[in-house]
């Protein structure tokens, strides 16, 4: 079965190794979804506040807020999420201490597998089930932790035999396991560790969870300055006689300019090797992609040479993702 296109899904978990730019990618993707007329919710799971800075808006809270037309943003808070859930499910009067129970629950969650995860993932699934939004983009936890989060319903099923939490896992599993609804978008940069973690993640998603891989975003791809013949010409420019002509024309030594180009060529080359390894691992025999499943789409986002990080950068990511998804 062909995997549905990325933006056709209703619930997207964006993950990746720390530092690869998953928040910016989530924000760009959310902008793109909203621009396509989808009622979009973007949720930051770790509440570091980076998502708000991508939109240059006030800090996000658990209560979602429309930050741009058609785009709502929130940050996850497992205690608040549980409180909302309890008051919806138990119809408890406030006085009965929903707050105390929520705190207790958070405490239990520090020991019991899947308890905190089920509350956060549950809230997101609930937004999807209730059709409050056309698409929910989740700036999820890092790739080392996402598998535990997405496998939470199964973990809960093993441990908890009865109770409200147990009753919730079935419909959540239905949402999470349906590739037409839910997908994971893994973000990597073409570097050694991010690539290694992505390959590991793809394997673990397939073996330990029921959630499908919607695609892989390769972020911060450096530009290719020269093709072969051009590179030879570039080398010739470094010869003393050529350097002298350049120096005369520019009114100063050209070497730093040439060095900067060399720096870029070298960096791009070393990154290309990692990218190659990623492609090979995904497509090769014995790789993490089970036979019969098509290769996940690779979406390339260029390195942004910008003065600052903020809405302008997010817009450029949006444009790059749009071009990749339409190609």
């Amino acid at each position, binding site marked *: 079965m062909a995997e549905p296109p990325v933006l056709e899904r209703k619930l997207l978990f964006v993950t990746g*190794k*720390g*530092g*690869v730019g998953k*928040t910016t990618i989530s924000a760009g993707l959310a902008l793109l979804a909203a621009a396509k007329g989808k009622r979009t919710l973007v949720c930051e799971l*770790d509440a*570091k506040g*980076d998502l708000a*800075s991508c939109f240059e808006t006030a800090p996000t809270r658990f209560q979602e807020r429309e930050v741009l037309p058609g785009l709502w943003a929130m940050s996850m808070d497992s205690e608040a999420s549980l409180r909302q859930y309890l008051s919806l499910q138990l119809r*408890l009067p406030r006085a*009965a*201490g929903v707050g105390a*129970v929520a705190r*207790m*629950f958070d*405490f*239990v969650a520090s*020991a*019991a*597998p899947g308890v905190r995860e089920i509350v956060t993932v549950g809230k997101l699934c609930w937004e999807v089930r209730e059709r409050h939004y056309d698409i929910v983009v989740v700036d999820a936890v*890092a790739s080392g932790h996402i598998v*535990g989060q997405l496998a939470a319903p199964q973990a809960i099923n093993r*441990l*908890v035999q*009865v*109770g*409200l*939490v147990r009753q919730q896992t079935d419909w959540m599993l239905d949402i999470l396991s349906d590739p037409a609804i839910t997908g994971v978008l893994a973000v990597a940069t073409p*570097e*050694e*560790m991010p690539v290694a973690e992505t*390959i*590991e993640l793809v*394997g*673990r998603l397939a073996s330990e969870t029921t959630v499908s891989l919607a695609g892989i975003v390769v972020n911060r791809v450096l*530009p290719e*300055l020269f093709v072969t013949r051009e590179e030879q*010409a*570039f080398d*010739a*420019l470094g010869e003393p006689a*050529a350097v002298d*002509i*350049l120096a005369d*024309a*520019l009114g100063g030594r*050209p070497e*730093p*300019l*040439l060095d*900067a*180009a060399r*720096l870029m060529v*070298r*960096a791009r080359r070393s990154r290309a090797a990692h990218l190659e390894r990623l492609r090979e*691992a995904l497509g090769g025999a*014995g*790789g993490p992609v089970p036979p019969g499943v098509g290769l996940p789409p690779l979406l390339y986002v260029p390195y942004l*040479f910008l003065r600052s*990080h903020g809405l302008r950068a997010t817009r450029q990511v949006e444009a790059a993702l749009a071009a990749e998804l339409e190609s």
Partner: protein
Amino acid sequence: MSVANSQTSIEALVAAREIVVVCGPGGVGKTTVAAAIAAMAAVHLGGRVLVVTVDPARRLAQALGLPERGREERGREKARARAGGTGAQQVAANAFARAGVVPRGELWAEMLDTKRSWDRLVSRHAPDPATARRILDNPLYQNISGRFVQSHDYMAVERLYELHAEGDYDLIVVDTPPTRNAIDFLLAPERMADFFSSRLLRLLTVPYRSRFADVAARPFYYVADRVLGSQFLQDIAEFFILFQTLSEGFVTRAAQVERLLADRRTAFIVVSTLEAVPIREAGAFMRLLPAKHLHLGGVVLNRVLPAYLTEGGLAERAEKLLALGPAVAAELCGPGGPMAGWDPVLVERVLEEVGTNFANIGVVARREAAQRAELKRASEVVASIPDLAEDVHDLAGVLGLGHYVWSPLTPDQIA
């Protein structure tokens, strides 16, 4: 702060400490920097130096003689389990020989094994071996030790304490785990102590029958039962009752660990790149250090663009190159020119790429310089590592990077 002062180098700092904790946001190269500091200390300062690392890249692990990180398609847990039996390993003399150096001291490396550290801690603090066994076999314990995210942080400091107390090493360099937030690492001992003193822990471990005697807590149990089911709640309570037997030992230990971190013999080195998000997290971390009475030894900036990119006049030269491209290409490729025979259109395109690339890189270099100046006001940047483009794959590579960490910044690098 005077930068000419000889104290402001990582070398001087490391020479005066017994423990160096390398911390910072995720993805900035902490593991490699920790390895580089330890390797440089072993080579130049001597003594027995140990680097405790968490999840090294495959080639870095090889360079340190550590068991290979699990093959990528396998889970991390497996890699850790295999690493479990090894403890610290000495980096072989011939690895140094291949790198062309004769170390004054010894370099040892150990991979942190969270699970094993937990097991040891439980065995040490349990009242008797039977209780220890019951805790170790409990499925909830398996979860705490294996998946409880903050436990990696706690175990890194716990293991550090143990190693320091054993006294086998002159210097211990610790690479901190990839946490969601660098701050988690600092808060780990405190959280451990809070866990045991929590009122909630007491509520949960009240014997089941007497729960309903406490009128105030009754709604709590009522709701908890409905949400989680009483069986699960009982399983949790049972586990916590067992776990509570460890409380005294754990809390005492956490206090000792906290004292060791705050001791003058310990220094924190914050690693960051100059990108916006890591730098913000690193900044928050640095502000927290003094509040926790911890000593910031210095800041190491990784993957920094070379300083020459911001030199005056270069941006103008790049602009000129873009404007004069066709003329310069014609001159280069003209008869008797150094590139006679080349297609001037192709050469023009190459010149344009060179100019555009410089304009692009220059934007990033200036942004980095501004970030760096801001950081300078807040704290001391003591080392700066250029973006080397190549991954570290042997000890020579580790030492090559170490050279940048070690050498004090020259005045023009500081500006």
